[in-house]
Structures are given as C-alpha cells and as structure tokens.
C-alpha cells in the first residue's frame, strides 16, 4: 500500500505544483483520519517493522519522540502539511503514533483552558 514503484500517476503537465505529493504516491488524503494542522502526535513506543516504511515515515517517527504538531512536522520536513497528514495517517493506521486533535470548533476549550492560556501569556 505504501509502495510507489509505479509512478505513472505523475502527470508531467501537473508539473512542480503537485510534485510534493510524489512522496505519498500521489495520495492527497489519508484513509480514515483527518489531521488538523495543530493535531499533536507522538511516537508510540511499540515495535514496528521499519522495512515497510518510507524514509519520510522514519524521519517523522524520529521527530515525534516528543509531542509535536502537524504544522511543526511540516516545517521541519519542508513538506506541505497535506503531504505530512497523509504520511501520519499511514503511521497512525499501523499504530506507530498516537494523535490528539484540537478541541472541536463547536466546543471551544472550557474556561479553565482559557484562564491557563491567559496566565501562560502573562508569565512570558
């Protein structure tokens, strides 16, 4: 599923604009998970078969030993966020990472979170 030996999907006419998606074999969405740009992910310390992962997956695993956001991973990997989300979806499906989505928009963080944010800013 993660092999990309057949690269015929790559359309010359599409040119450099979609080139970043070569990393994902052209896939632009991960299977079942929608990652937010501030979803936090962390490596789950379970054994994993590294041979079935691409170099980008392994780089992500090494970057998320501590919790890190999708946006930070994208910045450090110098890949568009959409690409990183697809790769993270692969890792999540395998159980290689844990992910926490931000609070749903309809249910903004409870007030104690806002108070904590206010206090945290004041302490800077």
């Amino acid at each position, binding site marked *: 599923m993660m092999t990309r030996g057949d690269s015929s999907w790559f359309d010359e006419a599409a040119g450099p604009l979609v080139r970043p998606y070569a990393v994902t074999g052209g896939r632009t969405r991960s299977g079942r998970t929608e990652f937010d740009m501030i979803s936090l992910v962390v490596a789950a*310390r379970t*054994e994993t078969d590294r041979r079935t992962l691409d170099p980008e997956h392994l780089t992500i695993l090494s970057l998320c030993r501590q919790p890190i956001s999708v946006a*930070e991973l994208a910045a450090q990997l110098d890949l568009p966020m959409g690409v990183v989300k697809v790769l993270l979806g692969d890792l999540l499906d395998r159980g290689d990472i844990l992910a926490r989505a931000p609070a749903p928009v309809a249910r903004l963080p409870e007030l104690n979170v806002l108070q904590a944010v206010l206090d945290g800013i004041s302490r800077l």
Partner: protein
Amino acid sequence: MASADSETTADTPRSADELPLAVKLLIAGGFGAGKTTLVGSVSEITPLNTEEVMTEASLGVDDVAGVEAKTTTTVALDFGRITINDGVVLYLFGTPGQERFWFMWDELCHGALGAVVLADTRRLESCFPSVDFFEGRGIPFVVAVNQFDGAHHYTTDEVRGALDVGDDLPVVLCDARERESGKEVLRSLVLHVMSRMGAPAAATG
C-alpha cells in the same frame, strides 16, 4: 495492545488523551502589517514556516493524478508556539489576509480561540477584509494597531470610527516588535474571548 517494551518510559503517553491539548490564535492583517513580527516577539521558537498546497483534494478529490495545475495553489503560513503548561500548547498562526487566500481560512479558523487583526497605521484599510471576515464568522477578535514610525498615530477611537466597530470591540495600540506589547495584545484577545463566553477572568499577574 502491544506488550510493554523496554524503551517505554514513565512519561511516554499510552493513549492520545495523555497528549497536551493544542489551541491556536490567528494573527491576521494586510500585507506587511507586522504579523510575522508579532508572532516572533512572543513565540518561544523562531517562527516556523510551512506551506499548504491546495489542490482539488481540498474539495474532496481523492487523488491528484491528472489534476490540472491551475487548480493548485500554495499558501505560506508562519507560526509560533507558546507552551502554556503540561496540558496545553498555544500556537499562533500568522495568516495572509488577502482575499485570494480565503479558501483556506476555514481550516485556519477551525478550532481557533480567536484572532488578532493587525492594523497598519500606514494603510488602515488593508485590515478591513480581515475584520469583515471574522465579524461574518462570529469569531472573536481584537484589533491591534501597529504604530509604524513616521506614520499617522491614530487614537483607538479614530480606529474604531474608521473600522465602524463599537465600543465592545477591543482596540489596542501596539508595537509588534516588543514582547511586552505583543503579550498585551494576546491578553486582551483572551480576555475578550472569555468575556464573550460570559466568564470573568481571575486576576493574573
């Protein structure tokens, strides 16, 4: 699920609930208004830059194979981070305020606590689209007036008049280069969000 292995340490999260909660604030405003400067003055990391390649994928197409190049756009975002405590991390996203980028504002706004609209004293009108956007979406925001050297210095009432907004909208004067000033802007935003949710803030110092 998997049996414990030797690498597991006490602080390794075992479930996603143990990860911190991420929240975000948006820093919007016209071209060159000082968005990146403000993010940088309060962030604990040097502002990072990432880009989102928008393809038809964002409209629900599953594969870019054969997607026409003209349907693809790149948007650069810069952002910073403030670790609030063990359980909460705050991200600040500087967002391009030009109308041609609005296709990605839905994702940017998703889960955002609120927004700072940076007004540039040299061209106040460049923040109007951002003000309209947040007003229309009901997203709480404050206006921070970045006082550029040599530009006309407005009073907060003059800015309110120009933006046609009421007394209930916080307008603060700032210098985006100064951390204390940036903190004050963020504090006024969080207080505004809290008051919109009907909660008094406890004094912080």
